């Protein structure tokens, strides 16, 4: 028998004295991923929620202690799998910081293009899923076709789509092909590309009365609470704090770009939605700027796609067959015999969900002594019970999707 004495939401003298316990998850179809929330319900109102995580824990940090740097990249793919290129780049940047590698400008700009594309692909999923969960399915279909196009661009560059393993320490595995640029043109096209589609999506949602009624005031959080809960990324910005790693600690030449940080006020689902939409516009503008910058690089730099770090960057196959040095480096890298300097480094990038950090301690061996991923989802998920308390069950579903909780990033 559940003790109901402290349930203030029950009216005085109510005959209904017993609350219901509902297991929302771990395999509930309305929670997009493996989340379990044990809810105490009074009718449809949530009195108490207890979150459980850990259903897909994969021990990445432990595995990473026995892997050379380049073999850890595929592990990072699987953190936030909606935007794995950002995770890959974050990891490469961490390694480069540890090793003291300086990348050429063209590599930085190419990375920015890829990272902003994946930010768009992550935000578009999140926002269209908020639509789906509030009963508007068509927006999802509009945007989803462009995620397909983004994945095709990844495919042109690295050969895979979801878990990309894109790039290497020092740059990319190959230069962007003509087809990749063509597809990027198609994506950026004002009339038939993503901007037109995003505008259409905004027309459907932003001032839609039903959508506004559904999301305004749903799952709000104040700036102060959000900071105390360790929120970062769009969820923190929706609460009104303009913290963005790209601006605060620029990496990969983000300081060369002109963009604004959109912020909200109330930190509710509607503000999170608006912030993400606005960020997609900013990302589009960054991609266009980076595109221009890459095309403006002339001369010997025009085809550079990696830094000169022979000890960590796998040499080209034709060199391996013809040059002694390339063969030695190839062997050393593949066998994981590249030692790294002693030191500890923390590096973070602005992931699609917030500050994605890598804390790497090296004891001079060939594998990290300790590697810790700061997964933004894991940290802000703690606030979920507080966000949904006192609200309706259906609001809990929208709140979950608008926080963009990704199970892969929870469990590390």
């Amino acid at each position: 028998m559940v003790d109901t004495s402290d349930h203030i939401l029950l009216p005085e003298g109510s005959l209904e004295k017993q609350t219901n316990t509902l297991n929302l998850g771990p395999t509930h179809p309305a929670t997009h991923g493996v989340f379990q929330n044990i809810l105490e319900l009074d009718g449809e109102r949530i009195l108490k929620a207890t979150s459980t995580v850990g259903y897909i824990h994969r021990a990445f940090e432990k595995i990473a202690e026995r892997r050379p740097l380049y073999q850890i990249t595929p592990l990072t793919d699987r953190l936030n799998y909606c935007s794995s290129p950002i995770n890959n780049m974050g990891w490469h940047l961490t390694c480069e910081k540890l090793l003291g590698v300086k990348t050429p400008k063209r590599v930085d700009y190419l990375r920015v293009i890829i990272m902003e594309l994946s930010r768009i692909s992550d935000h578009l999923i999140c926002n269209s899923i908020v639509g789906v969960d509030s009963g508007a399915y068509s927006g999802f279909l509009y945007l989803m076709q462009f995620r397909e196009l983004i994945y095709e661009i990844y495919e042109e560059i690295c050969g895979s789509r979801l878990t990309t393993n894109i790039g290497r320490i020092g740059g990319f595995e190959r230069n962007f092909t003509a087809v990749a640029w063509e597809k990027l043109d198609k994506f950026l096209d004002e009339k038939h590309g993503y901007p037109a589609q995003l505008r259409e999506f905004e027309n459907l949602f932003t001032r839609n009365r039903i959508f506004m009624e559904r999301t305004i005031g749903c799952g709000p959080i104040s700036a102060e609470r959000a900071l105390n809960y360790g929120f970062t990324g769009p969820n923190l910005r929706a609460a009104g704090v303009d913290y963005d790693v790209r601006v605060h600690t620029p990496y990969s030449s983000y300081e060369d770009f002109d963009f604004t940080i959109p912020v909200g006020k109330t930190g509710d689902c509607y503000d999170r939605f608006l912030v993400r939409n606005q960020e997609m516009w900013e990302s589009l503008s960054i991609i266009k700027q980076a595109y221009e910058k890459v095309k403006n690089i002339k001369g010997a730099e025009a085809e550079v796609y990696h830094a000169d770090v022979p000890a960590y960057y796998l040499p080209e196959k034709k060199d391996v067959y013809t040059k002694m040095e390339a063969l030695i480096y190839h062997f050393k890298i593949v066998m994981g015999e590249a030692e790294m300097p002693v030191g500890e480094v923390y590096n973070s990038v602005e992931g699609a969900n917030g500050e994605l950090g890598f804390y790497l301690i090296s004891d001079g061996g060939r594998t990290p002594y300790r590697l810790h991923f700061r997964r933004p989802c894991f940290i802000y998920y703690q606030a979920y019970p507080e966000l949904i308390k006192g609200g309706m069950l259906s609001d809990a579903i929208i709140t979950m999707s608008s926080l963009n909780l990704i199970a892969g990033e929870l469990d590390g």
Partner: protein
Amino acid sequence: MALTNETIQQKLTEKFGEVLYNWGEPYGMLTFSGPKDLNLKVLQYLFDDDVLNFQFLTDLQAVHYPGSPGAELAVVYHLHNLKDNVRIRFKVFTDISKPDVFSATALYMSANFMERETYDFYGVNFVGHPNLIRILNVDEMDYFPMRKEFPLEDQTRIDKDDEMFGRGGRQ
């Protein structure tokens, strides 16, 4: 005036004297260690001081150093001053046979899950934590898997040893 690492170090030394040690700046981030029974006092001071303002807990994790008796486990706090955009790293070391460290949950709500994770993998007992139970591993587990005494691979294999990972050889 922007907050510099020297100012932070000076202010902390003024307040706590010589108990804080191991000052360093690996890759530009001010790093220092302190005694474990003072961790909350240091964090509170960093939080409350008008100049220091380290009010954002970026990350919290543990590291296991089996080679240093009496200080096997390190709990590492990454703190961030969002106003001046300065990050620092603060470590406390604890004995593995009595791994009690005060919990920072009263100061940062975000420390809740992070401390549970740290407990789960390293067995650091956060004193004062409201709900210190396992978070990612199964509840029935009776060991702490990220400690170094649990190697990833079968140690009876002789074709692949530590030497291949750059750490000493089989003597």
